[in-house]
Every structure is written in C-alpha cells, then in structure tokens.
C-alpha cells in the first residue's frame, strides 16, 4: 500500500508542472463558462476544440524540435505554403483530395527535411535556417499565386474536418492519433530517449554513439509534417486559403511549448505539457476577446503572460 502511495506521489511530483498547467487550463475554462454567457458551451465549445487541435498539432511539432535543442520559425511559411498549395492543386473540387493531401504533406515534410539537413549537416543556426526557409516558402506561395489572394477548400475536406453537427470533428480525431503517435515515439522507442539526450548535450550524445545529426533531421521532418497536417486542417476549418494565414501561428506554438514547461535550450519538455500550454493559450485568447478587450490590450496581456509564465516555471540553471 505504501509503495502505491509512494508511486502516486512520485508521479505527481514528476509531472508537477504539467499538472499545474492542466489545472490552470481547467480553472480558466470554468471561470470563462461562469463569467461569460455562452462561452464554451454548444457550438462555441466546438470552435474552441478546433482551435486547440490546430495549434496543438503545430505545437507538438515545435515540441519535438525544441526538445532537440532547436527552434522552428518556418511554421508560418510552411503552414501557408501547404494550405495554398492544397487549394491550388485541388481547385476547390472534391476529386483526388486524398492524393493531393499526400503530395502536399510530402512537400511540407521536404521543407522540414531541408531545414534539418541545413541545421545538422551544414551547421546553420536553427533560428536563421528556419527563418530563411520561412522566407523561401512564403516566396514560393507568392510565385504560385502570382498575385491572386488564395483559393477555396474542397467541400469534402471541410465536412471531414468540422464533422457533422453533433459528431466529433475529424480534426479532433487526427489530433488524438498524432498525440498517441508521439506518446509512443517519445516513451516507447529508443528515438525518444536519444532525442532528449541530443537536446541536453549533443557532443556527449555523439560520443556515446548516437547519430545525433539524423535524430535532429528526423525532428525537423516530423515538425514539417505536423505543420502540413495543421495547414490542411486550417484550410478545412476556414474553407479557404490566403496569403498570411499562418503568420499568427509561429510564436503561439513557442508560447504553448514554453507554457508546457519545456526549456527553450533543449533537453527537456513534454508533449502532455505542450497540450496543456495550448489549452491555456486558446482559453486565454477566447477569454480576453470575449471580455471585449481590444486587440492591442490582448496582445499586451499575452506578452505579460509569456514572461510571467517563464519566470514562474521551475527551470535548471544555465
């Protein structure tokens, strides 16, 4: 019996920050439901779930990259590129949607692959490499559109993503599948262990026989793939693609990862924490806009929350 209590205690202590993050998310949600009429019930609940799914999938990719000690700032570009390429190829029609999704996901993974190769093998700092890639992808979108503003989503995609009136939205199912996949990857395979090792000290990982370069490339590929999936879901949710649709997603992913207790220096971080961070971020966003605060004030509060959250997070010494 004592053993059991100890085990529970240890688990709670181990995941303290994550539990706290979830608690904050839940408290925020309950407060919003009580304070603001119509918040988080019925159709608005679905809106929140969809937003959490999109930001959550993007943030999971970002989590992997940040654990490995890098950062991915090409999310905005990759998201926009995927979305625009998808609507461009499908032309807003239902035919061949699944085949086109496959192509688009290959393109977004390829962008991640190039990121990874540049960072791991050419030793380009992640900040600069992904930033340059962001510029390249946005440029690609501009070339592709050639002055147009965007395209429309095929109806079948929107139906799948949003789900029927009372059914579970497809986006949520995809999100759950990805979460299970990452759980499996990080905790049940050697890749997960290696990833944390590479993030905390690349040199030592190299000396212990881990091919840290390949691990890094893999994280960026997965990051690109998840961004692509997020982009397609966003197209389905909005019903269209347009230039700059991904711009407001890069930094929220970083914020979600940091709120989830990861260190931006790499080596620590947890996908469950990231999901909690995503929930907190979306709740706050909904709460602040429901209060009728103007966008600038919301932005100021977001900035404060980021800094305060990082100050309050327990962290290792530099």
């Amino acid at each position, binding site marked *: 019996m004592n053993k059991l209590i100890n085990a529970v205690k240890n688990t709670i202590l181990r995941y303290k920050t994550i539990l706290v993050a979830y608690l904050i998310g839940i408290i925020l949600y309950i407060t919003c439901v009580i304070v603001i009429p119509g918040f988080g019930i019925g159709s608005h609940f679905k809106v929140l779930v969809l937003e959490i799914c999109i930001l959550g999938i993007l943030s999971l990719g970002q989590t992997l990259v940040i654990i490995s000690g890098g950062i991915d700032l090409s999310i905005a570009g990759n998201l926009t590129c995927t979305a625009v390429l998808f609507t461009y190829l499908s032309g807003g029609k239902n035919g061949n949607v699944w085949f086109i999704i496959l192509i688009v996901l290959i393109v977004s993974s390829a962008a991640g692959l190039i990121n990874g190769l540049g960072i791991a093998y050419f030793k*380009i700092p992640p900040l600069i490499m992904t930033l340059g890639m962001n510029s390249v992808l946005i440029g690609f979108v*501009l070339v592709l559109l050639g002055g147009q503003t965007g395209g429309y989503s095929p109806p079948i995609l929107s139906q799948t993503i949003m789900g029927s009136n009372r059914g579970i939205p497809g986006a949520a199912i995809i999100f759950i599948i990805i979460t299970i996949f990452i759980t499996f990857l990080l905790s049940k395979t050697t890749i997960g262990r290696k990833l944390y090792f590479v993030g905390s000290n690349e040199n030592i990982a190299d000396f212990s026989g881990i091919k840290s370069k390949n691990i890094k490339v893999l994280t960026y590929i997965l990051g690109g793939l998840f961004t692509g999936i997020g982009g397609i879901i966003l197209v389905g949710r909005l019903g269209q693609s347009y230039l700059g649709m991904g711009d407001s997603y890069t930094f929220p992913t970083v914020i979600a990862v940091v709120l989830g207790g990861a260190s931006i220096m790499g080596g620590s971080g947890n996908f469950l924490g990231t999901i909690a961070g995503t929930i907190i971020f979306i709740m706050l966003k909904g709460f602040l806009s429901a209060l009728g605060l103007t966008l600038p004030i919301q932005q100021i509060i977001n900035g404060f929350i980021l*800094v305060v959250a*990082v100050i309050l997070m327990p962290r290792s010494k530099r």
Partner: protein
Amino acid sequence: MNILNSVQAKKILKPKWSNLMPVLILIALFIIMVILQPKTFSLYYIGIKFDNALPLMFLAAGQTLVLISGGIDLSVGGVMSLTTSMLATMQLNPIIVILLTLMMGIAVGIINGLIIEKLNIQPIIVTLGMWTILGGVSFLFLDMDGGVINDTLHSVMTSKILNIPLSFYLTAGLVILWYLIKNSRFGYTMFAIGSNEKAAYCTGINIFASKIKIYAVCGLFSALAGIIYAGQIGSGSPSVGNNNILLSVAAAVIGGTSLSGGRGSITGAIIGVFIFKIISDVLLFAGIPSFWVQLFQGIILIVCVALSSLYSSIKSRAGEQID
C-alpha cells in the same frame, strides 16, 4: 617556430577572410546590378539606397552588439514601432518627444537585461514577450499607419549636406562609432562575455552590469532606428518593426556575426543590410517578377550562412590538427 608562425598566420587570416566574404557578395551583386541597369551607378541612386537602408542599419547595429554578447533581442522591432507611434501622436515639443522615445528604448533594454540576468531566463523568450507587449502598446498610441511627424524632423532626415544625403554621414558615423566601441572597455567586455561567460566572470568582469549596458544600448539604437524611419517617411507606423526584427538578426549573421556569441561586427551588419536591400533591385532589373524577391532573399540568407559556418568549421578542424 614554424608551427607558431602558421598558428599566428591563421589567427591573423581567419577574421579577415570571414569578414571579406559578405563584402565580395555585395560587390558581386552591385556589379550585376550596374550591368543590368547602368543608370544605378549614380550618386542619386546610391543615396536612395542609403536612405532606404538606414533604419534597418541601426536596428542591426544594436542587434549585433547583443548577439556578440551571446544574447538575442527580439524586442528591437517593438521599440522601433513604439517610437514611430509616439512621434506621430504626441503633440509636444519634438525634442522632448525624441528624448522620451530614446529614454523608452533605454528603459526597455534595461528591463530586458534585468529580467534576463536577475531571473536567469533565456533572452529569446524574454525579448519575445517584450516585443509582444510593445507591439500592443504602439497600437494603443496609433491604431493604424498615419499620424503626422514634426516637419523639422522630416526635413532634417531628408536633408542633404554637400549634395550627399544625411544618411550617408550617419552610416559613416555608425562605422566610426563601431571602431570606438570595439577598442573600448565596453567592447572588450562584450566580446569576452560572448566568447565565454564563465571565463569572463572569473577575470573579474561585472557580467550583470555589462549585459544591462549592452541591452540598453541596443534599445537606444532601436529607438534611433524608429526616429530615423518616422523622420524619413513623415508618418508613424505601429507595425513597422515586426518585419524588421528577424531581418536585423539575418543582416547581422550575413555580416559574419555568430549567433553563439563572441564574434561579429557592426560594419558586417551594415554590409548585410545592403545585401538584402540590393537583392530586390537586382531581381527587379533582371525582369523577374517581384513575387520572387522573398524567395531569393531566403535562399541568399541560407547560402551565405551555410558558407560562412562551413568555412569556420573547416578552419577549426584544421586548427585542431595543428594543435
């Protein structure tokens, strides 16, 4: 003796070569541009380019100092936006407003430095938060592009001395300032902290005070960038900084500044800014649609940094063999 000589030679040659590469790229771009459009080889056009590049130059200069010390400052854009918004809306004596904006820039830098050093948090997160906050505040001052800038400031910023635009003199001033900084105590501590913070601490450098100074100077430079931009354009913009933040880092890195600290120069950053500003013109004169500009900017950024980091890794490998 022979080995010593070669090591010494390497030490002397290494910074020179890595400094030279961005210059070569800039010269190549310039030559291509002049071939494509001979009229660009004129004082008028080059003056416009200097005007165009000046705000980003100041931003990149401040960023370079922070990067050399091993940090990064994403709040530079926020300071720049807020400065232009304040200048465009505050109906006070322009000198007072300018002083206020400069003080604001320094204060933001000090707050950044305090949080980073006292609470031991990664610079990228602190300054990202600061950027978000300042971006919001500047929208509170000015909700869209516009406002009126004081006429005197506008005419000063667009003035010409001896038929050469003011921006040219300011650029020259920036270069001179860099040589003063580099050979000052402030400069030495900056490089020392960036190369190895612990070693710098052990030699008795006051890391805390120096870092706060560096971030404050960066804030000051960003405010200056905002003043110059507002003066040139004649109106304020609450979002102008956002596009320039990452560009300032990129320009510094193309100019040979290392993101891991301890290496870099403002002259390099200035060249990096010009590379970015000239690419778009080269593409324009080559008859390539403007949609391609961003694509090429990204590729050039990646290629430049890849070349310089490959070069330095080859160099360091060669150095290891000698030792």
